């Protein structure tokens, strides 16, 4: 099977209305965030961390999914890989979202208070790692690494559209092999730096993996939603149910993976019952946070688990689309649950929480339409494309 390569390839622009809506959401989000910073800078900085981690999830997770396809030799995902590549471009915007936090480090990160650190034996011991200079340096290096790999993957992939050179696939496979350990370390550091260090006395060695499980889910769900939308509006070549099944199955697998990791973290801390470890869960089990904790289990695990349990449900586009949105929301809730208890002992919710999610949805729409204007939506030169299009279970 081969796809008809028209004169303009598979370059298909999104309608202007989508781009416009993207800009409106983006500006609205920025406005809410700016207002939030004026009204309550401390709270907004915490919301900003949630927003940053969410964007990092979708962006870096998408680069990871691209690498995963190459290193695993996956065939089914080739026709839709461009969506992951486009979303990966979001890594380039990470500094913009992180920037306001850097001006409010003192408000959110206890370990930035030098007088506190010098009087605190534990924090003093951690200070070779937890200090502002090294924190910024880590951010810059991680950003550079993610951007570099995103750039290399997409450049090779795009070049292949015209050259049809199979060697480019081989190069990307090698790159993916290098990227995997780099990604593991950089994502762990991201989780440790931005989320775990909010409570600098506490530590959990599984924390990075925990964030990773949510990262993959978020990137996968974002891609799934966009792929189904594009498919419904005829932007993509005809895909079989089998390809969507693979998306659903991967999503289902990572829903379980998230629950597995989340429970492992809980079980070990609960079992050892060491005060310095249990504090973290204790502060999420009182003053109303216990309801958020229970809600998280239901929203992030129980409901999507049963919604995607059967084989048919993984091929049901409507169900899959709903679950993709649902899981993106669940990841947001997860980050809220990770970050916010440090801000306030009792559960609290404010309009400022809407700023970054709205901003990010707008951002994704704008970036997507920007990317689709300039790139083929299908990797027409990929040697695995034909097999990917006729993929069957």
């Amino acid at each position, binding site marked *: 099977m081969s796809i008809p390569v028209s004169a303009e390839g598979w370059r298909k622009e999104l309608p202007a209305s989508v781009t416009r809506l993207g800009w409106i959401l983006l500006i609205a989000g920025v406005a809410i965030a700016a207002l939030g910073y004026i009204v309550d800078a401390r709270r907004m900085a915490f919301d900003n961390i949630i927003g940053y981690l969410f964007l990092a999830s979708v962006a870096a997770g998408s680069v990871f999914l691209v690498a995963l396809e190459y290193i695993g030799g996956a065939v089914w995902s080739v026709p839709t890989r461009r969506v992951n590549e486009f979303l990966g471009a979001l890594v380039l915007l990470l500094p913009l979202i992180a920037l306001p936090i850097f001006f409010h480090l003192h408000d959110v990160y206890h370990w930035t208070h030098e007088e506190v650190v010098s009087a605190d034996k534990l924090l003093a011991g951690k200070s070779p790692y937890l200090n502002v200079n090294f924190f910024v340096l880590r951010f810059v290096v991680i950003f550079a690494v993610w951007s570099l790999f995103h750039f290399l993957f997409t450049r090779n992939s795009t070049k292949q559209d015209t050259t049809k050179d199979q060697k480019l696939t081989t190069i990307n496979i090698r790159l993916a092999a290098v990227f995997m350990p780099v990604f593991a370390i950089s994502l762990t550091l991201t989780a440790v730096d931005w989320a775990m260090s909010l409570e600098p006395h506490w530590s959990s060695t599984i924390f990075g993996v925990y964030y990773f499980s949510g990262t993959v889910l978020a990137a996968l769900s974002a891609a799934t939603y966009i792929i189904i939308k594009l498919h419904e509006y005829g932007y993509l070549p005809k895909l079989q149910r089998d390809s969507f099944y693979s998306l659903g199955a991967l999503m289902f697998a990572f829903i379980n993976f998230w629950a597995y990791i989340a429970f492992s973290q809980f*079980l070990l801390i*609960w*079992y050892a019952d060491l005060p310095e470890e249990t504090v973290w869960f204790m502060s999420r089990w009182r003053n109303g946070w216990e309801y958020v904790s229970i809600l998280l289990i239901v929203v992030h695990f129980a409901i999507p688990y049963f919604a995607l349990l*059967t084989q048919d449900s993984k091929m049901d586009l409507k169900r899959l689309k709903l679950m993709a949105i649902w899981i993106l929301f669940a990841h947001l809730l997860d980050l809220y649950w990770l970050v916010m208890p440090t801000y306030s002992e009792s559960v609290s919710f404010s309009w400022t929480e809407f700023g970054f999610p709205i901003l990010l949805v707008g951002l994704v729409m704008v970036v997507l339409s920007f990317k689709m204007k300039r790139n083929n939506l299908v990797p027409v030169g990929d040697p695995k494309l034909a097999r990917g299009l006729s993929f*069957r*279970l």
Partner: protein
Amino acid sequence: MPMNEKQQFSLTALFDTPDEIIHAAHETSSAGYTRYDVHTPYPVHGMDKAMGLRQSRLGIFVLVFGLLGAVSSVLFMSWVTLVDYPLVIGGKPFWSWPAFVPVAFEITVLLAAVLLVVTMIVLYFKFPNISHPLHDTPYMKRISSDKFGISIQADDPKFNEREVRAFLKKIGGKEIGPVYFDLEDLDHGQTMFDPKFLGVLALTAILVAGATYSVFNQILFLEPFSWMSTQAKQKAQRPSELFKDGIGMRPPVEGTVARGFLPYPFKGKPDEAGKNLVNPLFATKEVIERGKARYLTYCSPCHGNFARGDSRLRGQFPNPPTLHSDKVRNWPDGSIYHVITEGQNVMPSYASQISRDDRWATVLYLRVLQRAHNAKESDLK
């Protein structure tokens, strides 16, 4: 065996590529054949659809078995921790459900997987039947190396040897040929319980278990970490590595006395003990409680719960005397203390079981018993 005793099972054809076999399967199901099967050396994607198969119903079995595993393991662990053997572990409640989750998860997966395979073997392969007409045919030998095949069965309602042969040829089949079978070969059960088969099975099990054991526990054994099993400490019935003479239990250093172990100065001198020893304890509530506990543990088996010399040992052992005799009542505390410490005739010493203070407490409790047994008028006021 003559040919005519065999029945035809099917007509088979071979194909070279997965695409060809997908096409062939599609054609066969479209042509209306229902009793046929496709054989490939490895799973071919898209085959279910090409053959027009319904979704397998084994998924429902998995769900049922999985739930069975989850529920039964949780019930079992609840029974163990609440009813059968309640133990406080790490200061946690008896019913600590988080600790159940890993076990419940494993049992769920295990039962679902194992019972699924069993169900499949029983339902689809008709266990204990272990033979199939296609076994050991040249057709199957080709399939298990590099060919793809289709086998249209003779019991298909549409089966007609000539038509099927033409059909298979039309869809590109090669080496078309019939497969025969002998009813006797398909005799169920016999082969399964053949002693030779069972013997080989048992032998295999023993060999595999032995090989696994020796490889992992002997030949390739790597100690994961040794800081728990190899400690510099005394082990029972082993020479000590800490002392030159190899003796683990050290005699006290000469001329010293261990704390709480003052030597007893009245060995073999009951009278002097009675005269010189003074009970250092007062009959407070705690002391009496303590003495009572010691008495009930160490003395009551012989002297009885109330020291009347009426324990259940009576008649099986030189009868332990009552301790309410005038003699014992009039003894000073020191004399009773001496009996507990040294023993008396057939009564053994309790010095090693009961500490010094506890011996005195026991004496005080004995006094309570004696007083209760011989209460005076004035005690009632």
